[in-house]
């Protein structure tokens, strides 16, 4: 199906093949100059503005500094660290110097850092501070192509004097010197670029194998941003909070592809811990986050609700009853009677206004979720608050997204319709294919994978789905994850998992049952929420494994499962479950860095549990060693109960 929308947005009329990110950056910086704030960072307790002119100067000297250190066309510059202006300057600097940007997740372990630096042939690494420098130094000798490690936060760096280290300040000083020699070099570099050149090398999280590096051109990135902004136009007076990892394509899309074209202000939180608070201070107009962020918000509201006094609970119940009713009418595209409008206004004044303010959602025009499946319950929850939450579907390989909900045409079980210039079709096997100007160039140093994914300009996503009667795309699940029930029908485990996660007590869930007689679930309880609940019930416990195995906690989880089982066909109901003795963790390879379950891996790792769930036993004995984040290892010997769900 071909999508044609009325194109309302045209800050840069048409993305020509000649346009590059640096060229756009150059013209935007010249246009906005000293008058406009390009970004803000909260530092020392105060939001500090950075104008387009400051942004431009910093990028320019970083670019020239990199050239003076020996960056050549096509050389890779990797970045690691929290979201901060310097990170974005370094990326933009690398692009302006005709290099290629590579982002690493801030919490990547040494092996991952080493693999990506080595595979991408990175020449310069820009780290934030001591932590990143330590990581980089410990693998420096194993990555022969890595020339320099650049750092910008001087804290704790006083005793480092290795030759391979250089501060960002020093890089910029080198840039200034080079400018004196060749005053027009920066402009020349910017003008040289072409849209088809590689801009970013982005590593996909890889639920099955090693990460693959997707090559994205300037043209890919820019058309992506343009097409999304055509659907949901933003203004240059809007605010956006950049707090999700830059190594995630969604954040690149919002900060670079869209941000640069629109010119909205990027806001960087003070620290990772303060991001929720900082979002509230800014009150962004547009938001894009993976479902886990929205799940976290939902959980916060649910927990606060449980903790509050009678009158507040009642007010909330009344307001959410009204909210849900109105949201359901909107979903059904039915007329909303005037008395419901009045009630909606009443609910807004009574509860929702305050609640939205606390979540930082007061000014949000469009909130997007994507990157993983979101449960219908979460989705309805936000619409009941009056938040215009939309699903989007995309992947790194299309430089962000390809499908999105339109205003007034939102269905919570779909991901919407394709954005302009984008075609989506379904193969006979049910695989989702995408064709658009944003489809990537190929995988770096991996022609076999490229061949499998890119055929005749169509991107083979590896996701199963279908297009419904309204032209909406429904994403079922990853093809390899789709389960077959006893009666031969296909079933998406993700669907059930997201339903289970709507309970505030369930942090993660993993549903098993492919070609099995019945469906089972492994549950990871939310330690703090269940912990608080246990406190009010006067249950004593010393650790996560102990709490998870309490009879009362099993009863609690069983109730949550019964709720999630409701309205499901008999065969798709969870019959047995087990509470795991730990939370699933990306550091243990159980999740990807974007927190997707690595099914094949956990199935192998927890074999004993899986086989116990499908045998007659009601206890499984675990004897294993787990590694904490701080490096300690603990030997765990535990009996895990298996509970049959009352249905």
């Amino acid at each position, binding site marked *: 199906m071909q999508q044609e929308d009325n194109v309302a947005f045209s800050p840069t009329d048409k993305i020509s093949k000649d346009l590059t990110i640096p060229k756009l950056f150059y013209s935007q910086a010249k246009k906005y100059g000293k008058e406009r704030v390009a970004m803000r960072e909260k530092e*020392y*307790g*105060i939001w500090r503005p950075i104008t387009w002119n400051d942004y431009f100067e910093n990028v320019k000297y970083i670019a020239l500094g990199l050239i003076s250190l020996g960056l050549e066309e096509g050389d890779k510059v990797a970045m690691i660290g929290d979201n901060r202006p310097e990170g974005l300057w370094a990326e933009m600097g690398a692009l302006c110097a005709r290099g290629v940007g590579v982002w690493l997740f801030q919490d990547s372990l040494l092996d991952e850092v080493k693999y990506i630096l080595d595979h991408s042939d990175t020449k310069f690494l820009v780290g934030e501070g001591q932590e990143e420098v330590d990581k980089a130094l410990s693998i420096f000798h194993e990555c022969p192509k890595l020339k320099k490690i650049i750092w910008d936060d001087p*804290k*704790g760096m*006083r*005793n480092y004097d290795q030759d391979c280290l250089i501060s960002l300040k020093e890089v910029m000083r080198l840039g200034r010197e080079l400018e004196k020699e060749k005053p027009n070099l920066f402009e020349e570099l910017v003008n040289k670029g072409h849209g088809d050149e590689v801009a970013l090398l982005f590593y996909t999280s890889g639920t099955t194998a090693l990460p693959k590096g997707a090559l994205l051109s300037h043209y890919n990135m820019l058309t992506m941003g343009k097409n999304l902004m055509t659907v949901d136009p933003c203004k240059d007076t809007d605010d956006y909070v950049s707090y999700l990892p830059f190594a995630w394509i969604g954040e690149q899309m919002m900060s670079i592809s869209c941000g640069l074209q629109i010119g909205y202000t990027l806001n960087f939180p*003070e*620290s990772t*811990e*303060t991001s929720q*608070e900082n979002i509230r201070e800014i009150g962004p107009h547009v938001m894009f986050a993976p479902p886990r962020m929205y799940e976290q918000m939902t959980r916060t509201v649910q927990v606060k609700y449980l903790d509050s006094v009678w009158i507040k609970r009642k007010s909330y119940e009344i307001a959410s009853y009204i909210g849900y009713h109105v949201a359901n009418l909107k979903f059904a595209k039915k007329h909303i009677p005037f008395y419901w409008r009045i009630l909606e206004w009443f609910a807004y004044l009574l509860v929702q206004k305050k609640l939205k303010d606390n979540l930082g959602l007061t000014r949000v025009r469009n909130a997007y979720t994507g990157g993983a499946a979101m449960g219908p319950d979460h989705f309805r929850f936000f619409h009941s608050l009056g938040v215009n939450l939309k699903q989007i579907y995309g992947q790194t390989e299309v430089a962000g997204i390809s499908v999105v909900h339109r205003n007034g045409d939102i269905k919570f079980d779909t991901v919407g319709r394709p954005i302009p210039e984008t075609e989506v079709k379904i193969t006979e096997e049910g695989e989702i294919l995408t064709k658009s100007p944003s489809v990537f160039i190929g995988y770096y140093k991996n022609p076999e994978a490229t061949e499998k994914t890119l055929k005749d300009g169509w991107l083979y996503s590896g996701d199963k789905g279908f297009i419904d009667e309204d032209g909406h795309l429904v994403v079922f699940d990853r093809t390899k994850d789709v389960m077959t029930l006893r009666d031969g029908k296909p079933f998406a485990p993700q669907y059930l998992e997201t339903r289970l996660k709507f309970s505030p007590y369930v942090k993660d869930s993993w549903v098993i049952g492919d070609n099995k007689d019945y469906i089972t679930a492994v549950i990871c309880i939310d330690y703090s929420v269940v912990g608080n609940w246990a406190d009010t019930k006067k249950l004593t416990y010393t650790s996560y494994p102990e709490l998870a195995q309490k009879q009362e906690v099993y009863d609690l989880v069983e109730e949550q499962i019964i709720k999630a089982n409701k309205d499901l066909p008999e065969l798709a109901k969870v019959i047995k479950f087990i509470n795991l003795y730990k939370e699933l963790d990306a550091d243990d390879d159980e999740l990807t860095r974007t927190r997707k379950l690595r099914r094949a891996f956990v199935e192998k790792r927890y074999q004993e549990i899986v086989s116990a769930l499908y045998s007659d036993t009601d206890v499984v004995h675990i004897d294993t060693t787990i590694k904490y*984040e*701080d*490096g*300690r290892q603990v030997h765990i010997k535990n009996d895990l109960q298996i509970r049959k769900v009352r249905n």
Partner: protein
Amino acid sequence: MSVSKDIKPGEVLLELENIQMFFGKVCALNGVSTKIKKGEIHSVIGPNGAGKTVMMNCISGLYHPQKGNIYYKGEKINGMSPHNRAKLGIARTFQKVEVFGGMTVLDNIRLGRHIHYKSGIISGSLYLGQTAKEEIEHRKFIEEEIIDLLEIEHIRHKPVGMLPYGLQKRVELGRAIALEPELLLLDEPLAGLNLEEVEDMARFILDVNQEERWKVTCLLVEHDMGVVMDLSDNVFVLNFGNMIVDGTPEEVQGNPEVVKAYLGEEDLYATRR
């Protein structure tokens, strides 16, 4: 306060001379002498009840020893009260955190800057001209130098009593360095912390000691031998109020008496690393 002369790194900042402290007939410190040089981290170790905290209290002025002298920058400060010693630049933290639980993190730290405030009661309560300016200066110092250093941005407006123990310890350190001390007495700053918090705290102590901005001399009482031997320039060993040895970590580790009194007990020497 007559003591205000500048001491160069390596010169003696604080000297204890033959300190004797009795509680009734119990001798807590028996002729303890040591010299703490500017710029170093000097640790005090010893089994429980050895008199380490008593020694700290004698220096900070909480106790007044019956015999012996304490010199700070060469001047005798024996009879001086704790708040006057604070004005000289001696700050401390406590073994069990002694923060103001009902006050916010910011207010706790602000309290540590009390001695630097110049405005009086009246102008303070009216918050006029100079006072407002002064307040902003102090707030700036706290934000840029302390909150940033100790990485406590996310809790600056939280009441300290609601925070986990590890963070309370951090706030207490923040309050102590808000005084901009020259000598910092740290009484078991790592006790009760988990491994990650220990590493953080050790890093903060090193920062305060080594960072050009601070250069604070530290007297550290600690049981975690791994950290003590790693951080200290000199180690002082006490046993039942008696000084056993005062020397570099290597000298202390090799001293047979120390091994017998303290390190010999392998369990105690077990580091947490």
